[in-house]
């Protein structure tokens, strides 16, 4: 399988998506993008090309669930929500991320 250029950030992407869904409740793809962008003060911009494949994979891994719903504007949309397994994954990834940032920060500080 060819690696997508975003592969390095794939872990972060999962973390961001899971965290957003956990905090905000069910969202559709656009809502996810929008939320992450605005919460991060436009610092993080999600590539749609990597978002949807990632959503697919996470759905399949059972971390998120998806169903088609009619939005308040009468449009059919796919709404994603986090599952119990997803929460566990989120906790793991959160922990891993913090270890990583702590480690990186220390190296930056002392070396």
């Amino acid at each position, binding site marked *: *399988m*060819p690696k997508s250029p975003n592969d390095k950030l794939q872990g972060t992407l999962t973390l961001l998506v899971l965290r957003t869904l956990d905090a905000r409740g069910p969202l559709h793809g656009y809502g996810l993008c929008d939320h992450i962008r605005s919460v991060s003060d436009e610092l993080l911009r999600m590539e*749609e090309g990597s978002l949807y494949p990632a959503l697919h994979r996470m759905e399949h891994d059972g971390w998120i669930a998806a169903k088609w719903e009619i939005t308040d504007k009468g449009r059919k*949309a*796919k709404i994603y929500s986090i599952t119990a397994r997803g929460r566990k994954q989120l906790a793991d990834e959160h922990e891993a991320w913090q270890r990583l940032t702590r480690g990186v920060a220390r190296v930056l500080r002392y070396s």
Partner: protein
Amino acid sequence: MKNLFRRLRYLLHRRRFDRELADDMEFHREMAAREGKRNFGNTLRLREEARDEWGWVWIDSFLQDVRYAARMLQHSPGFTLTAVAMLALGIGINVAAFGFFNLMVLRPLPVRDPATLLFFEHQSPDNFGDNFPYPEVSFFAEHSKTLRAVMARGFGRLTVDREEEPIAASFLTANYFNELGAVPKLGRLLSPALDEAPGAPPVVVLGYDTWRTRFGADPSIVGKTIRLNKKPATIVGVLSNGFSGLGLNPPELSVPIVQKPYFEAGQDLTASSEKGINVQMWGRLRSGLTPRIAEQELTSLAAQLRAEHPKDMWEKETLSSRPGGFAMTVRAEMYPVLALASALGILILIAACVTLGGLLLARGAAREREFSIRSALGAGRGRLIRQLLTESLLLAFLGLMAALMAGYLGLRGSIVWADLPAWLNPIPDGRVILFAVGAGVAAVILFALTPAWHVARQRYRATTMRRILIGAQVATSCVLLIVSGLLIRALHQAISTSPGFEYERVIALDPGLGGASPKEARAYLDTLHARLGSVPGILSVSMASNPPLGNRWTVDKTRVDGRAVNIHFNNVDPGFFETMAIPVLRGRSLARGEKREIVVSESLAAAQWPGENPIGKRFSDAKDIVVGVVGNARLVSPEDSDAVEAYRLAQDDLLPAMVVLIRTAGPAESLVPIVASVSKSIVPRRFPEIHSLRSSFNRKVAQARYAALTVSLLGAVALLLACLGIVGLVTYAVSQRTKEIGIRMALGAQPSQVLSAVLRQFATPVAIGLLAGIGGAAALSQFLRQELYGLSNFDPAAYLGAVVAFAIAAGVAALLPARRALQVDPMLALRYE
């Protein structure tokens, strides 16, 4: 594992997933647009990227390639047909040959549980063979603990009702049919309880073919009585069609072996070795045992039997076995023939593939524009190669199907043509299909890879490659043509030249004295000699242990000057050379009572003692002394022109095996009935086998023709392939230079000048290919000569004939497309592009 399931689920539902993804993204795009952001990008490309995630893009692009390739092939039906036909020929010949090998050697016989069957042979320091005296076999059957069953088949001949000519009959142990799971078409088969009991009534089981041809497929035949050797026997059943027995030919007239003495006077079931009934023996191994254990057990049983009957058994007899459930076993002496067949098959396949490779390269060049456009649109080299390979794969697949079909038809045709038994099933089995697929894969690698590589690199004018292809093509076709020419010439030579002895006016009489003592045989033969000598029209009577043109021979292989030479030994009586009209060139013939004297053929003398007088020389480890030299007479195999002969006087112990030869003044056929009645007047119950040598000769010639026909067919295929390849290449070369030809013609060039300009580029590779082909053929024929006989070392006619045939065919193949180019209107050619 989970990943695999995920992927499989995507594969199965990929339409639904794709639609959902499209909808999802579309929603995203709409939302973005509503808020004035238009940066979503190309949904289609994003979808493709997302699909990458599922891991099945290659299947989509593969299907795409296949569809495209099918369209391309559909657009050029001429090319497609040629290519498929070439592959069908190249692979099909191999499939048919392998199919035959598979039927004979690899596929078990269609009998019950063939894997546990063993066929036994025995050897001692002085003897070896696969014939056992019946008492030994029944001793094994009674005492063996490693074999569940012991089966035996003896061969003989019986007359049916009033017919003069006896037909082949099988004398079987009564368990034979049950053990092999044979099913009766009518009635019952042999049964140990009914047919081997003392005093059981005489019975016979008919083979399916005999029932149909000889008894008109009479449905109420069971229970009828026929006379075998004038003795009544009840027909108890008919075998069903498709029963193979243990060998190539199913038993057609089966009689319980214990009843043999009833039909044939003088036979003794209890006698051993010399006088008794000799049979072939099979055993069924008990489960869990190895053949080795059974061999050891039977060897010790044989020693036990020898202790009881020291005179009837061989000293230090050991038994060996080989798998018994196959029609044939490959023996070392068959390797050269197998090697030759494989070499020819591989050459044909290479010739077909090289030709096809050339065509593909030419076609790639004709599609230059298409590939330029595609690579300009962003197709990578890998993608282009993949596309081309897909096209080749599709071609190979079509070719493979056609080849399987052609192989099946070829095999079926040859089974019918060569009159092989009906149980041989030509439908390809898994092994044949696997072989065909293997050949197909080899073909794809041979014909597709280089052209695809060249085309994808857009090196259409890769002239070196093309020249190598032409050279290789010419070389392989040449090798095939020359070798087939050599074989045909050798066969023709053997058939058309005189075999060196009289066969038109000689009758062979096999008295069938097997089992008689030398004394009895001497009495019978002397009486026969005397009575035949007084028949008007019979010029002389003599005998030989190996009848001319018969199926018995004694061959010693030696090497003379590195060449394999077969010395055919024969044991004859003093009158043999006169009867067979073989001239005594030097010295004298054999005389009565001589033991160590030997007469050799001129060819043997020339090979062994060139330029010397052979009379008085010692031969065979100095045991024999040469007393005479006779003319060359290829008595046993007229197709083996390298064979040499040596004759000894037949000693008394050989008398029961002698065949009587009768030279007649007029046509031999008219005297056959008289000879038959004379021989019967001596011992009425004996049924000698009588035939004219001319009929045997014709049968041998027919076999040789069959072989020659097969080989020339291969040669013709090679020539055809080469011509197709040349047509393709020249067409391509001409199409590349249409403009140039147009200008030259417009400027007033002669057609011949233009032609030579176009075709000159092919001259060198063709010449090199021809030389390489001649060299290859010489090397191959050298090898063949070591292993097969009768092939001439250097046969100018075969070489010249092949080269001339090739040159003419190649010339015609080159001129046809070139001529068409000359007829092009110059203006049209100039406006082109």
